[in-house]
Every structure is written in C-alpha cells, then in structure tokens.
C-alpha cells in the first residue's frame, strides 16, 4: 500500500519539481500536500510517504495533516464527479430523491467513488442557481430542473 507506486513518469516528475520548489520554504507540508493533490487528484499513500521522506518527517505526521483538513482526499476520485445540490431550494424541489436514486444506481453512498472509478458522487451545498432547482453538476457542468426519471439518461451519457 505504501511502498508500491504506480504513477506516471510525468506525475512523478511534477511532484519532484513541486517538492524541490518547497525545499527551503518554512512550514512546507500543507503546500506540498496541496500540490500533490493537484497532480494526482487525491493523496495516495506512496505520495504521502514520498513527501514524508523528502522533508524527513514521520509519515504519521503527514497522514495526521491529510486527515485533519477536509480539503484533502484520501480516496481517488472517479473520472466523472457528480455533485448533487442539497441547498434549501433544491432540496424542497426533490434533490434528496435524486441523490437517493443516484446512490442506488451507482451502488455507493455520497462521498464515495464507484468501483470502476467512473463516478464520484457528492452532496454539495447551494451552488447558486436556485432558479434551476433541483440541480446537479457533472464535472462542473450544470443540469437543472431534473426529476428522478432523468437519472438513467444522465448516467449513460458519461458511461463508455
């Protein structure tokens, strides 16, 4: 889990460059973790270990930071990120049912990624387009005025 590393040479080079840039920066760990997440989309164990070794700090310290801040992902994201708005307007218009339908179809609960890593499902706060309620976003693209019946069609659009 910690030793095996299967990133691309490009990712490895980017991480190395990011770490080198932070070499003499005081308190570099947060920045290093943020950079690493930009590169990988999440924080795989070997990446955390690499950061620990680079700055000669215990791996547990890195893991402690990564689990303290909610901005860090400890699980990989799917290819497509679905965010269902549970803001007040969307919720009263039935976004809760849409989320339930998605959870059932994808066989995961909100906050998780499907086994084939095609979808990550998230419940979000208000995203500011209440006029289209209920809304969800897929990879940042907004879909509005949805019903539970639209779910299948939407998913098939993003399934190869």
């Amino acid at each position, binding site marked *: 889990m*910690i*030793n095996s590393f299967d990133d691309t040479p490009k990712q490895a080079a980017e991480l190395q460059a990011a770490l080198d840039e932070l070499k003499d920066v005081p308190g570099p760990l947060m920045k290093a973790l943020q950079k690493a997440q930009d590169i990988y989309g999440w924080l795989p164990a070997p990446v955390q*270990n690499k950061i620990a070794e680079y700055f000669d700090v215990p*791996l*547990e310290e*890195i*893991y*402690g930071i990564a689990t*303290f801040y909610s901005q860090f992902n400890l699980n990989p994201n799917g290819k497509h990120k679905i965010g269902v708005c549970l803001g007040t307007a969307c919720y009263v218009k039935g976004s809760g049912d849409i989320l339930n339908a998605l959870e059932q179809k994808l066989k995961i609960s909100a906050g998780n990624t499907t086994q084939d890593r095609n979808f990550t499902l998230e419940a979000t706060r208000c995203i500011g387009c209440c006029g289209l309620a209920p809304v969800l976003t897929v990879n940042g693209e907004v879909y509005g005025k949805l019903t539970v019946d639209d779910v299948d069609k939407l998913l098939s659009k993003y399934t190869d």
Partner: protein
Amino acid sequence: MKQVTLKINNVSVTVDAGTRILDAAKKAGFNIPTLCYLKDVCNEGSCRVCVVEVKGARSLVASCSAVVSEGMEVFTNTPKVINSRKKTIELILSNHKKACLMCVRNGNCELATLAQDYNCNAFEYEGVTENYDIDETPYLIRDNNKCVLCRRCVAVCNKVQGVGVIGPNKRGFATHIGCAFEQPLSATPCVACGQCITACPVGALHEKDDTDKVNALLKDTDKYVIVGTAPSVRVGLGEEFGYPIGTNVEGKMVSALKRLGFDKVFDVDMAADMTIMEEGTEFLHRLKDKTAALPMMTSCSPGWIRYMEFYYPELLPHLSTCKSPQQMFGAIMKTYYAKKYNIPLDKLAVVSIMPCVAKKTEIGREGQSAAGVPDVDVVLTTRELARLIKNQGIDFKGLADEKFDDPIGEGSTAGLLFGATGGVMEAALRTVSEVVLKKPLDKIDFKAVRGVKGIKSAKVTLDGQTIKVCVASSLSNAKKILEDIKAGKCDYHFIEIMTCPGGCVNGGGQPIQPSSVTNNVDIRALRAKAIYDADKKAPLRKSHETPAVKTLYKEFFNEPGSHRAHEILHTSYKKRNKYNS
C-alpha cells in the same frame, strides 16, 4: 538571569524570567495539577486542567504554558478555577472507558487521582463513545478507548525519540491517536522503546503482560526455571512497593525471586561483564583493522537496534556484533550451564527481568538462539515483576536481603553501571584500559561519561593513542551523531547509545511515576545515583576481574572473541523496511 517577582495566592515569589506559572506556584508552595504537561517532553496545553486566574486576563490561563511577568497576580485555587478544573475532568471522563477496576493503572492513574481530588462525578456527562479496536503487539498494547488525547505519547515518540509512528488522526470528536493509514503499530517502524507507556497518564498504553507465562513455568514441576535480573531493575522495583525513588532493593528482589519459586536467581550484571569482554575485544580489533567500521557503536539496547535497522541500515556495520547482556545471559544458560549441570534443553526455561519492553521483541529475533532454542523464553518488565510479587502474596517489604545464587550469579559493578547512560562506556574503559596497558588503573571513575546529559564525550589515552568516546541517550540524540557519521564529521572511535533518555534506569518497563513527581524531580538521576553509590562501595568493580567471567573463559569460551564466543555471544543485523505493504 533577570528575576521577576509576582504574587501567587497573595504569596510573593521571585523566579527567573521565563519561568512557567506552574513552576513559580510550586516555588510559592502551591501544587497545580497537570494532565498533558510533561517537563521537557510535552507542552501541548491541550488538557486545560492546569488553568489559573491571572488578574487582568480575559479568561483562565494554562499555567503550563503561560510564563510569569513582573507584578503578576495569580490565583490557583479560587472557586472559578476549581470549578473549571472539575468540569474539564468530568468532560474528559464523559467518553473515557471507565473500566477502572480492570485497568493496569488502577492505583496509579493520573486521571483517577484528579477525579478524586476535585470530587468529580464520573457520570455527570455521558459523551459519545467510539468503539476503537485495541492495537496489540507482542510488547505493547494501545487502547484508544481510554485515551485522553493529552499528546504525551505523541510528543515523546516524535520529539524525544525522533520516531513519530503515532500521532493525532482526523479532527474534532473523531480525533484519535493512531498510526499512518490506521495501520496497527506492528506494521510501522516502532522501535518498541515503551517511552509512550511511561508518559501516558492513564491506562491507554501498557506493556504486553507476560506474568501468566512465567506463573505457568513456575508451577510446572518439570521445568527448571532460571531468572536473571537487569542492572536497573533493582533501583526501580522498590518504587512499586512504596520505597523512595532511587532505593536499591537488590537483596529483597533476590529474596522475592527465590520465594516465587525460580530454581536459580542470577544477575544479568555478570552477562554485562561478558559483554564488556567481548565488546572491548571487538573494539581493540577494530582499532587495529584499517578496514573495520569506526566508530564502533554499542548494541545492548534493542530499541536502538530496531532504530538502526529501520532508519539507518547503511550504518549497520558500525554496530558491535555483541549480543545484549540479556541475550548473552540466556545463551550462556542454554549452552554452558545446561551442559555443565546436565539440564535437558526442553526442561530449561530462562526468564529475564528487564526495565524494557523492547527486550520482549529481542527474544524473538533471528540469531538469538545459540543452542537451537531461544536464548531467553520470557521477558518481564520491572512493573510486571512487581505485579507477580503482589499476585503471589510475597511480603516484599518484610523480606530479608538475600544474595544471588552461585556459581555464576554475581557480576561486577562495572556490569551494574549498564543501567545508567554512560555506564557501558565506563565499564568498557575500565577493562580496555587495563587489558591494553596491562597494569591496574589508578583511577577507575570516568566521570565525564556520567550524568543525564543527552550527549557526552571524553578523550582517553590508550597506549599512547588518543581515543575519543561519546555517549548518547534517546534516539533524537543518537540521530544527531548518526547524521554526523553520514556527513563524515564524526571522529569518535567508540559510541554508547541507549534508546531511553538517561539509559535503562528510565526504561519503558520501569515503574511509572505521575507527572506531579516527574515534573519536579529527575527520576533518571535519582535511580542512577543508586547505581553509582553501589559501585563506589563495591569490592568488585571491573568486568575482567569477575570470577564468573574468568571461569566461563577458562571452562568454555577459551578467550574473548574466540570462535565459540562468536557462535554463542554474537549476532547480526539486517535492514528492515519501514512499511511492509
């Protein structure tokens, strides 16, 4: 240094600038309770038990972190303070696993003491409890259900030992002490020093108890059970029976072990003498051999060996190949002694009493089975021995002093010195000097290597050659030296390293003193003093003069560093991966 005068509960007191309110109050005659603060180790200010009122301050102040200022007026026992402490303790208790009757720290728990002192209702609040799995290793057990999140264990692991395998994970109510990726401790590069145990104010960390194993051996009439005691056990054990810190209870300890039913009670000091003979010889060889790795580093402390194997495998050739005294003791028993007294190996058991939890890992290592069976069968810490003595109804305080058994029971006080940081070096210098110079030393006290300082160094002249020696205790201090070696900046010839700060007297298996004691006296120095006092008075102070050592070489090993000595008394090391998955 600049002095500051302040008032504590209207008592005027003058202290150095920069003094913590906590320490100033002590000087003025007031105790302030602490749960997270641990002098020189932990200053998180997380528990809020040590709060006091400071005139003019907006809120209560943590006296472990706030320092004094001129004219300050502090109140340590107002109703507001007492009530705040009481509520804090009750909130800590709200999600604490209150299994106090079955807790290893029953009678020695800082949280229970506070709850009693502040008249707390342990059930005032009912907090949400997480059900954490118990993390068990062959040497140590972690139970997060009892953890009060004080961070002392984290601080000692990270700051004192530079290991840092445990730390706070997640946040808020989900915060808990754990390892990276919630792995069990056994899957991490934990060195097994056990310093987290002696730092823990409650029963969240404790040694793996092996007293049942020893009881079973003792009740088995078919078994011949030999016990050996490490140097520092005798200067710690008394604390478990109410003796002042630094009381040498060697005679009563021997007497208690005989009453427990051990067939022979021997002193591992004798094996420490053997270590000196072998290690001294190895050192002289390395000095002459231009290809050998120098500096040579001692190998008595199993936490240190684990540290080297995990963190500095490239420097392993610097480690002496000598087994530790515990393992030499067991190896001698299972080879020489078993043969001489015709005891079949399947009937012979060797138990060692150690100030250490890492010793529990050492007995299972490769290359520690000289006779084809493990050199040592069970290790008990000083604390477990006390537990066994109490369990078996032995009236420790009422016992008369007894002596270790013949013929190989007795060691020199050079061997005894192994219990304090600098002791191995001093014992080695006594022997190496005389072996090289072939004439008795005028002065055998090497005071430059004594004391609790983390890194000490000295120069000695051996046969015209200046030898530079160094002594370090705690792994963060060891790390500084290792980094110097890597950078080619180290010109020492011989280095003694002990895992625990102050050496074995302060080992992870020694009696636990609460922070109310350790914040005010240096228990390392008090226990070490008992060792040096015994050495001062002893007739036999050099390893090479110990009769048992002479007998062993004459009858069995021939000479130090012989082929047979290498087979039985030496071992090897290997690189270990920090994480195996």
